[in-house]
């Protein structure tokens, strides 16, 4: 019985430990990605004056409706996630 409890406790502890480790690794990797990939793209975008989001109204615009033209497409289109 004691061996069974030890095994259960050990496996729970192992899972908890691996979860904590994955949180730390995720944090480190994502921080690197953010301050390299996102930072560099953001810098290039700012230099080239590329806007990814429309953050301010354009008073001179007559409408904010944009063309969508979403209609039935070829079958293979629906198997894609994009």
């Amino acid at each position: 019985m004691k061996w069974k409890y030890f095994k259960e406790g050990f496996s729970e502890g192992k899972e908890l430990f691996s979860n904590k480790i994955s949180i730390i690794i995720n944090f480190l990797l994502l921080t690197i990605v953010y301050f390299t990939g996102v930072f560099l793209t953001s810098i290039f975008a700012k230099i080239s004056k590329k806007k990814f989001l429309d953050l301010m109204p354009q008073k001179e615009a007559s409408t904010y409706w944009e063309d969508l033209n979403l209609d039935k497409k070829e079958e293979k289109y629906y198997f894609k996630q994009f």
Partner: protein
Amino acid sequence: MYILGISCFYHDSAAALIKDGVLVSAAQEERFTRKKHDTSFPINAINYCLQKEGITSNDLDHVGFYEKPFLKFERILHQHIETFPKSYKVFISNMPSWFNEKLRIIKIIKKKLKYKGNVRFIEHHMAHSASSFLPSPFKKAAILSVDGVGEWTTTAYGIGENNSIKLFKEIKFPSSIGLLYSAITAYLGFSVNNSEYKVMGLSPYGNMDKNKNEYYKKLMSIIDLKDDGSYRFDMSYFTYHYKNRMPSKKLCALLNGDIRRKESEITQRHQDIAAAVQLVTEEIMTKMLKHVHKVTKCDNLVLAGGVALNSVYNGKILKNTGFKKIWIQPDPGDGGTCIGAAMYIYNVILNNQRNFVLDNAYLGPEYTDSQIKNFLDENKIKYEEFNSDKKIVQKSAKLIYDNNVIGLFQKGMEWGPRALGARSILSNPCNPKMQEILNLKVKHREKFRPFAPVICVEDANKYFECDSSIPEPTDFMLMVYPIKEKYHKLIPAVTHVDGSGRLQTIRRNQNQLYYDLIKEFGKLSKIPILINTSFNIRGEPIVCTPFDAYKCMMGTGIDYLVMGRYIIKRADNSQDFWDSEKYAKD
């Protein structure tokens, strides 16, 4: 042919199953896991759908998902690039779920369902539009889909005809009426993607006069609204594109104060702000709908997206926009898109003619009398058995008339966020203290929130100032109408502060016992109206199983539970005997 639709990983995960174009089952995952607005993969809802038809995943011909995850991910990346470095915290907290779940949806579906076929991905607003148009009674209708955000789109309109849908125009993130409403919901101290309806309920306490409500003018000053209903926000007042906290400091300054703390006092200023956001929403929606009506030249309208849950505005649409008929499905929010994904595959992609109209919401789990009896006997619960519906109706009506609060558990669980007589708490609307009693005994909810009335459809025009032909969405409690003034004092418990009521109309072919119960109560009280509120306590999902219903009754002050053909009296059963902890894993 079986097609499964799935929506998950944002909020309100759900699944729906259609058989040869007919919707046979649909349910939200939260009802099974008992976790409100559960976002997880809806394995329980899917299992229910499959089990109801007696099939396995091998029998599924197609599976549809409610959005295109990579497009959504693209938008998320664009947000981070645009707002670098302010988005760092959100990037760190949200990215793991993208890599572990959202971008691996095909693997997850195949693994969890042991499904070997392909998965089809339908754009978010197309899934919304399909979920509202394809099961509607209209051959042709204008479609307007408005929610927080899908992949990029926050608002889209188009037209549906027979089994085709075309969406012409869109408004893109970050400008979004849904997110504006959510930002103000957060500002007022309520939870986002959950409590927007509380803001709607609070709004009549504020100043609904556009000329006198200063916050309406302030909110309009940060929105550029064009005559065609298109709009764009000044995003310096919002933070939702880079933070989990929605209102910015600038918005707080604009609204003369900081974010309200949860459970703190609601002041007149808060009420005026709630009124202001409701007025802004109504103004944008009205302009937009007038434009859609003009462009589509169609008198029928289907509304989709979370904003279509704004029942206060829905009740004003036909009077103000030129549309003559309206239809909204019982769950127009994200949960409802699983129906759209499945029906879009059947009707549009596979080019099958439409053969289904969604005329009732009882699509969830249903329990037979023998299953209920087994549950009661196994748990030694005392009950009274009735051998006919007529007798149970008479007894229940008398109990309600005597000011008892009853839980009604009949038929299949409702699809959508509203309880519609299958998992409802019913009580007497003529008792001026009933709102207080319900709050004290069961619901423990904010005092400003009204309770809803239910009435048989043919009686509705007598008591309410409805549209001349009562629209079907009223059956799903999606329209608010004024109560005729002479009845305000007769049904005080369901009359909101502005004299309105979020009524549910019921037709006998939808739910015979429920309909007869309202009529029977009408014979006793001379008022054929009941209070209908959802069978749950604050913070929990609506009950699903007999276990949930009994547990809810024993844990609250509900006096009787009318379950199948059995009536259970709370006072007859010892609360000590029902150890909810012991049964928690059932």
